[in-house]
């Protein structure tokens, strides 16, 4: 029989091993609840502000719709009806750019990740040197001496293939798959502001500034390392036997990837896609440099509100709510997948 416990003991000591004392439990819930409020309150405030009239904002804070004030849809009407296309166009731009860049990043990233898991690469130092030298030559020729880009590139490519064989024989030291992977991931360390200036000039030459295609390509390139990093782990977890038997049956590598491996790595694919999709949706810096009007994305539209109209919070809140609603919806519904993607990337290191 257990001895009778005093009130003091019952509050401060756990009932049995592995459980928690009631007071500790209360403190835990208190702190967790506090952070829940910290997390949700800014979102609540956005939602509430979006249905306020200007007077409700300017006269000092009111908190509860229907209790403190009568909500009004005037800001929503203004953003959707009066501004109409000015809202819809950036929204559509964001959708197109996020979806397009994600699809391409996942496609090319998965291809590379699968190749890095199943194929042994040897890149000789000689070929890298040759590539760098010829690239420098092409850039110099085109930039300094006015040789047209396509011509310079074609000549460079021809020279590269010509020299490749002989160089490989002389400089034999080679880099393997891990080096390639490290190089790809290390691109994430580079602050995008370093890369964006040359991309800006490059796009100016190629007439890609302020176009969907330009932003799609750029976002794809920025997110590609993440896809490679995550998908490599998901692919590596798939047993190789299945693929080997398919190979014996005569299936090609690409076919194996698309019909056997990708369906098996479905969960990882979903995680990776969602993560990249949200990153592309939220991106700000690159769009700031590379889009001005036609391809303007939502974050740029929202950020620009301040400059053009001053802080008209009710309109701004509507824009922010429609910008973050899809992201929050995806997050809450598919949290399991996204969290898994982040965990695989972070825990492995």
């Amino acid at each position, binding site marked *: 029989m257990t001895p009778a416990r005093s009130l003091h003991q019952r509050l401060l000591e756990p009932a049995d091993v592995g459980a928690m004392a009631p007071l500790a439990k209360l403190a835990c819930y208190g*702190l967790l609840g506090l952070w829940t409020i910290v997390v949700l309150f800014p979102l609540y405030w956005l939602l509430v502000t979006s249905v306020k009239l200007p007077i409700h904002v300017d006269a000092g804070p009111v908190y509860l719709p229907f209790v403190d004030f009568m909500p009004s849809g005037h800001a929503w009407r203004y953003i959707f009806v009066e501004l109409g296309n000015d809202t819809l166009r950036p929204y559509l731009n964001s959708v197109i750019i996020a979806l397009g860049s994600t699809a391409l990043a996942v496609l090319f990233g998965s291809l590379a990740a699968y190749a890095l898991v199943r194929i042994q690469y040897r890149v000789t130092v000689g070929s890298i040197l040759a590539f760098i030298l010829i690239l420098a030559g092409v850039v110099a020729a085109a930039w300094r001496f006015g040789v047209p880009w396509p011509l310079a590139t074609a000549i460079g490519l021809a020279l590269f293939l010509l020299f490749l064989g002989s160089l490989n024989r002389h400089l034999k030291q080679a880099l393997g798959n891990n080096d390639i992977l490290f190089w790809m991931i290390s691109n994430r360390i580079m602050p995008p502001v370093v890369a964006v200036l*040359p991309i800006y000039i490059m796009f100016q030459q190629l007439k890609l500034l302020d176009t969907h295609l330009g932003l799609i390509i750029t976002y794809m390139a920025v997110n590609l390392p993440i896809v490679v990093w995550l998908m490599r782990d998901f692919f590596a977890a798939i047993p190789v036997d299945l693929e080997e038997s398919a190979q014996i049956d005569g299936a*090609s*590598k690409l076919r194996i990837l698309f019909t056997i491996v990708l369906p098996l790595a479905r969960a990882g694919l979903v995680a990776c896609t969602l993560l990249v999709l949200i990153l592309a949706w939220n991106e700000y810096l690159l769009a700031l440099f590379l889009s001005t009007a036609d391809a303007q994305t939502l*974050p740029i539209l929202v950020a620009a509100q301040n400059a053009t109209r001053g802080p008209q919070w009710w309109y701004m809140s509507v824009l922010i709510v429609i910008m973050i609603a899809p992201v929050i919806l995806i*997050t809450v519904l598919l949290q399991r997948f996204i969290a898994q993607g982040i965990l695989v990337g972070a825990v492995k290191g």
Partner: protein
Amino acid sequence: MRLSAWADRQAAAVMILPAVLILLAFSLFPLLASAYLALSRFSLAAGGYKIRFVGTRNFAKLLIGSEQFHFLGTFGRLSVLDYLILGLAVASCGYGLWRYLAGGRAGLLGLAGRLIAGLLALALLALALIVLNAPGFPGSLVVTLVYVVAGVALQFALGLGLALLCAQPLKGRNFFRIVFFIPLMVTPVGIAYAFRMLADMGKGPFAPIWQLFGLAQFSWASDPWSARLVVMIGDAWQWTPFLFLVLLAAIENQPRDQVEAARIDGASSFQIFRDITWPAIAPVAATVVLIRLIEAFKIIDLPNVLTNGGPGIATESLTLHAFIAWRTQDLGASAAVGYSLLFVATVTCVAFFNLVAQRTRRHEA
């Protein structure tokens, strides 16, 4: 059919080449071109632009020239305490180096890396002390460091605390887990505006509280430190979930039987944390801090939208500085700022990886 057969034979190249070419075009090429831009002067000319090579003049402008106040900051006077701190830092760096050399496993690369990292750390510390002292005023470099160091420390502490709470045997943990995760995914520009509204002392939701303390007339946006604090709070709101999520997973993977055995033996919660939980999660903690460090150096959305870099340049991060230089058509200065950021971020991250992250792993083995 023939095309697919050819594609299959070339599968090795076909699969990896797109990714390699994309990264070459959008990462390596811009990196090199940017280095050239940083060393040249960009000017608009008839029918286009002119790029003229000027050597290190852009960097000289940032370090000792007309943009010094913007990049490094305005210098103040050092107090005795600052000299003491500096002396202590020099001594501890020297001691670390001596131990490395005496350890008998020193290599040329390791020595060079440690020298670069140590000298950079000392230089940045000295700079921070000089510009944070009375008539001084920090430039974008020190402000970015404040965001990175103080911000990541704050987020780590919050994330770890929440993860420890969420790892307790409580009902409804899943609810907290989903809610706590949300901020990470919310568009930073949206967060910035939300916090601007929340922080408004006259019309924001906390206005009655400010009035109670007689602070309603105080404007956080015109005081450098309160403006920086608001930026850091917004950043912490967004990024704490990332550390929380990963640390929680690590805590849940810790050896359960050891924890239970320790508890039966009467160990206190703090002892269990110090001797079992912390060693178990240290490698993951180091990795997640490294990832966060990499991202923290790139901060721009929050300061740009929340405060526009102001008051003055008080909240300007390096990326924002580069953007502002670009907007005024000074591409050379913009690239030079970007390259400085690249240098500081890379040295910091590589040093952290080699000196901290690797060490936690060694204990594990």
